[in-house]
């Protein structure tokens, strides 16, 4: 499974609050306020895109392609949104988002000390996420 460079990862709760943010490159690093603002903006855009759809049953933006980056978004059934900003044309990002979702259900939701909808501060989640991204980098080098 070859994956490409990821710039940053966001997780937003169902009311649009940023509960997790991590960046993986030094370029374009944001401070807390900016990332919070961006997260709630994305939440609104996602909601608007559903309204824009001419046919019913639209689940919102899955992929946003820009000149120099891609943004992949995955929304869980409970309305938690996961999105990664990555290199253009990076493959397998849907896969990666699903794996991240799996880590979230394991190490965040099964942790008795995590309060729902609140910022994620779980050591095991950080650890496993770092390992996942690391694996991804190694796979990239081996290509």
């Amino acid at each position, binding site marked *: 499974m070859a994956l490409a460079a990821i710039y940053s990862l966001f997780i937003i709760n169902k009311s649009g609050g940023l509960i997790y943010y991590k960046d993986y490159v030094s370029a374009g690093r944001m401070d807390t306020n900016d990332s919070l603002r961006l997260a709630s903006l994305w939440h609104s855009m996602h909601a608007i895109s559903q309204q824009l759809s001419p046919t019913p049953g639209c689940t919102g933006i899955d992929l946003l392609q820009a000149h120099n980056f891609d943004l992949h978004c995955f929304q869980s059934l409970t309305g938690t949104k996961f999105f990664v900003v990555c290199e253009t044309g990076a493959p397998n990002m849907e896969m990666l988002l699903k794996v991240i979702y799996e880590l979230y259900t394991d*190490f965040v939701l*099964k*942790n*008795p*000390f995590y309060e729902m909808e609140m910022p994620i*501060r779980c*050591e*095991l989640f950080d650890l496993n996420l770092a390992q996942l991204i690391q694996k991804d980098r190694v796979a990239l080098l081996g290509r």
Partner: protein
Amino acid sequence: MIGVGKAKQYANVLDKPLSRGRQEVSLSAFAFLFSELVQYNQTQVDNIAELERRLEDAGYAVGARVLELLCHREKGNRRETRLLGILSFIHSTVWKVLFGKVADSLEKGTEHEDEYMISEKELLVNRFISVPKDMGAFNCGAFVAGIVKGVLDNAGFPAVVTAHFVPIEGQQRPRTTILIKFAEEVLHREARLG
């Protein structure tokens, strides 16, 4: 449903053999249940020591039952009466039934004669749990310590059992050690038995 009707019907539930049945339960289901247990107990206490004690109590009840069941099922209604016997019973038989594997290690404490340690690299109950920094050395393994205490107490080996995180060199995650400190009378009895 497939398989239904294959099982022999017993008129009286007591005639049914006490078989192993299906040995596995869903890890997720257990993790959510355990998480809920911890969360509920958290609302009932105002300090961490109290939380630890409540988890231990919950485990104690499990231990008492597990001892009863396993002595009947695995050992033909006999139970261990010697210190090392009961410890290896916990380390292998109990651990295997509860966690699907033998505990990683069973050691004797180096500093005190009455201390034994069961260590586990990754305790099943701690698999998904990250303890926040502000809770200090709190370990949800207190539940497992309670199970061990339940088994020991009911087998006639009163002991104080606690769970601790022990950092391992070169590893990011500490392991959990269940520390067993036996009561004086247990050691006296052992010495007498020779």
